[in-house]
Each structure stands twice: as structure tokens, then as C-alpha cells.
């Protein structure tokens, strides 16, 4: 099933896309202004109230600097080795405590959901950050459609395992499949999206095609890529980095400048895109989304639930 350039892709779902597409970007000067070397300002005011108006990183930076261990350790590895990944056909198993479990074709997953642009800050646990214009829909929309049963407390996700197309999976760098999880209230939060594209294009393979999670107030590794399984469960699920090193990576992994990684500080970060002298800024609580999400954690000791 080859897609022609002119045909619609996963980010082109009715209603009419609200994002600024790449053709418009390339058409030029009118669409975008270069605000700083390596950073772009959206000329169209972000339509979603959840979007930041911060300067966006370029498509080039967003697609050439990735952590995706299924394709290798290096930041350049995903771009180099992910291009052979088959993302069509694609289906997601949705099971556990849901009313309508099953294997859903990607088109079916997206059916009825509103794909919109969400310009989010993205903070890596390695203390660098970007601003990414995702295209996606709220995870809550999908969960409501499949019907969450009363006993469900957490949502568990898995990435594809396909060593013949994911060379990093032949090594033992991490235990495969890559696993992630959210508490149900986190999963239902309107900021939490399943993204199917960025910059108005289908999701690049190195960024987690064809569909990935984006949870902007948590460290980047929580935003699991290339999802093939979503389970509603009663118990807190096991998550990959927490399994790899429980002392360093907690289940919650909320961006928190006051709770350091045991090996390095999380007090500040290097926003990428500013070049060699781009500088360093203070990291914001919940990556700047405290107003929207702090209430989820009321009463929790964040140094324990890190």
C-alpha cells in the first residue's frame, strides 16, 4: 500500500487539518519567520490552547537527534537505521480492562478522533530540550471509545518488537519490548496525546512512526514510540527504564528541577537549536505545565514518587 505524495496520510484526518503543512512552510517566507538560527516561530497563532508559543525546533533537528534504542545508542542512529521500518500495515492490540478489546487497525484507532497541532516543549532526561509541533489526538478520546472499565487504574504501552527491522533489538541494551505506563488520570489528561505526525507530515520513522505517545510534562522516555499494544490494567505496570535502573528512573518521571537524576542535575537544561552559544535555562516544574497537571499529584511526595 504505497501512498502517493498527494494522497492523505495519517496526519491528514478530517476535520480539515488545522496545522500549517510543510508545503506551506516550504512555499516560504510568508509562512514562517526565522527567529533565531535553528529555531522557527509559527506565524499562525497556535490554535490549541495547550500549545506553547515558544520557538519551534526545525524539522531537521527534530528528525536527526533522537533517542530510540531500538535503532541504536547514538542520537543519529534512528535517522540512519529506522527508514526500513514497515509502518503500513499497522495495528494496535487494545486489551485488559476495556469494554471493546481487540486488534485495531491504525485507521480504526484514529477513526473519529480530532487530529490537531500541539506545539509542546519536550524535555529529555538527559537535560536537553526541544519544542516540537506534533499532530495528534487526545489519548482520552481513544480510551473513552474502547470503554475503560472501573477496575482500571493504569495504562500500559508497548513498542513494536521486530529485530529484523530494528537492529538495536538484536543487542541487549534494554529488555524488549520497550514498555511504558501512565496512571489513568495522567492518561486521560487533555495534554496527553497520541501523535501521528509532526510539522504536518506523517510521523517520521525515527520519531516513532506511525503512532506514539506524547506526555509533555514528563521526561521524553515516557513518550513511547511505535505503539503496538495498549492495556488497561489494575496494577502499576513495569516500565523499561525503571526496570533497567529503578534508582535512576521512576515510574512517574515528571520533569522536576528539584529532584535530580542520581548522576546529574535536573535543575537546568540546554534548549537545542540555539547553536554553540545557545545557552542554558532553568528547568520548569512539570516542564512548564504545572498549571495544568500539578493537581494530579497533590499530596504525593515527589521525591519518593519520582
Amino acid at each position, binding site marked *: 500500500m504505497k501512498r502517493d505524495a498527494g494522497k492523505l496520510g495519517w496526519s491528514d484526518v478530517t476535520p480539515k487539518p488545522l496545522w500549517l503543512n510543510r508545503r506551506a512552510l516550504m512555499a516560504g517566507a510568508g509562512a514562517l519567520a526565522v527567529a533565531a538560527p535553528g529555531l522557527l516561530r509559527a506565524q499562525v497563532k497556535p490554535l490549541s490552547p495547550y500549545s506553547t508559543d515558544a520557538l519551534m525546533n526545525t524539522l531537521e533537528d527534530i528528525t536527526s537527534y533522537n533517542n530510540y534504542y531500538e535503532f541504536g545508542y547514538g542520537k543519529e542512529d534512528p535517522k540512519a537505521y529506522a527508514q526500513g521500518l514497515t509502518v503500513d500495515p499497522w495495528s494496535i492490540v487494545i486489551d485488559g480492562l476495556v469494554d471493546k478489546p481487540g486488534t485495531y487497525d491504525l485507521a480504526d484507532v484514529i477513526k473519529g478522533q480530532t487530529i490537531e497541532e500541539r506545539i509542546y516543549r519536550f524535555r529529555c532526561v538527559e537535560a536537553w530540550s526541544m519544542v516540537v509541533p506534533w499532530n495528534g489526538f487526545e489519548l482520552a478520546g481513544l480510551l473513552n471509545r474502547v470503554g475503560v472499565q472501573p477496575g482500571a487504574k493504569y495504562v500500559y504501552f508497548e513498542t513494536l518488537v521486530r529485530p529484523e527491522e530494528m537492529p538495536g533489538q538484536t543487542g541487549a541494551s534494554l529488555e524488549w519490548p520497550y514498555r511504558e505506563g501512565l496512571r489513568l488520570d495522567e492518561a486521560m489528561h487533555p495534554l496527553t496525546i497520541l501523535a501521528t505526525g509532526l510539522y504536518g507530515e506523517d510521523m517520521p520513522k525515527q520519531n516513532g512512526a506511525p503512532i506514539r505517545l506524547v506526555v509533555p510534562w514528563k521526561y521524553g522516555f515516557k513518550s513511547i514510540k511505535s505503539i503496538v499494544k495498549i492495556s488497561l490494567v489494575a496494577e502499576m505496570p513495569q516500565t523499561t527504564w525503571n526496570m533497567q535502573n529503578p534508582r535512576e528512573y521512576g515510574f512517574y518521571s515528571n520533569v522536576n528541577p528539584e529532584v535530580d537524576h542520581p548522576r*546529574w542535575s535536573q535543575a537546568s537544561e*540546554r534548549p537545542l537549536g540555539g547553536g554553540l552559544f545557545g545557552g542554558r535555562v532553568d528547568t520548569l516544574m512539570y516542564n512548564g505545565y504545572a498549571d495544568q497537571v500539578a493537581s494530579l499529584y497533590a499530596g504525593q511526595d515527589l521525591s519518593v514518587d519520582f
Partner: protein
Amino acid sequence: MSAQVSSQSINQVLRRVPAWPVYLLGAVPLALIVLQVVMGELGADPVKTLERALGEWGLKFIVAGLCITPLRWATGVSLIKYRRAIGLLAFFYVALHLTTWVVLDLQFRWAEIGADLIKRPYIIVGMIGFTALLPLAVTSNNLSVRRMGAAVWQKLHKLTYVAALAGAIHYMMLVKAWPLEPMLYLGAVIGLLAWRAGRSWRRSQGSVVTAQTAK
């Protein structure tokens, strides 16, 4: 026999090759890095790329310096004349690596730098490595060797082992999971130090034996 002859002839040729070209060659990686900076080819995270490249070159020169003596043991080829240049290059790259961290990465945020120096094991280990290199760089000249005497000077320069181990461990400690490259450096350093340790242990055993037979 023929191996001995060829190592001797190599040494003879080397006698005519001065050490200064090593400095020139050693500056080539820096020149390439500067070129990448100018061309904007350091990727999305240029600070980290620069920092990593400088640190890795520091480690490479440290490992190269550690290879010189075992190479002589194994083949008879002596590169000892170039060791000072290699050592100073190592120091030079490590110093640039540290400067990049302070100036471009941490941007003179002294409070954070101070906290890192106290709290972060990988920073502490890295600083131990740099501190171990300092007296070596300062005494890497003929005057110092003369003033200190060869024996004391050689003893001091055993700090290289501390710097090498600290550098390799520092690299290993700052990565997530178990990527190959830092493990290779750490393996090389441990291997080269173990070779020395094994040899001096055998020699101490051997000298005991000869002392006994002499009696």
C-alpha cells in the same frame, strides 16, 4: 631474530624523526572539530557533540600514551621519544573538554558547577582525572626531569594511571545503559594497566627467584 632486527631498524629510522610532527598531527582533530563548528556541522546538540569529541580525543591520547611501554615490551619498537607530546596532547584536549563544560555547557553557572563538583560522582571522577593530569603537564619538560631527578619524576608520572582510569570511568558513568564505546575505552585502560601490573608482579617473583639462586 628477524623480528628483533626489524624492530631495531624501525628504531633506527625513528631516531631521525623528531617529536614535533606529533604535535602537528595531534592538532588535526582539533582543526577538524573547529571546521565542523564553523560549518555548523555539529548537529542538533553542538555543545554536547563538541564536549564529547574533545573528551574522547583526550582519552584516545591517554590510551595511546599507555600503549608505548607495552609496545616496546612486545615488539622492541620504542616510541618513548613521542610520549611527552602524546601526554601533553591528552592534557590539552582534556583541558578544552573541561573548558567547554564550564563555558558552553554550564555557562558559568557556578552554583550548579559547585554542586556538581560535590554531588555528582561522574563529575568528581572526571575532575580527579583532570587534577591528576595537571602536575604531569606542568613537569613535562627537561628542566623538571633534571630538577626532580628521573626516579621521582617517573614516580610522579605514574599519576597517568589515575588519570586514565578516572577518564574511562567518567565516560562510563555518564552514559545511559551500556553502549560500546565507553566500555572499549575502559577495557583498553584496564587491559594496559593489568599488563603492567602483571609484568611487575612477575618481575618481583623473578627477582626473588634470582636472588635465591644467587645465594
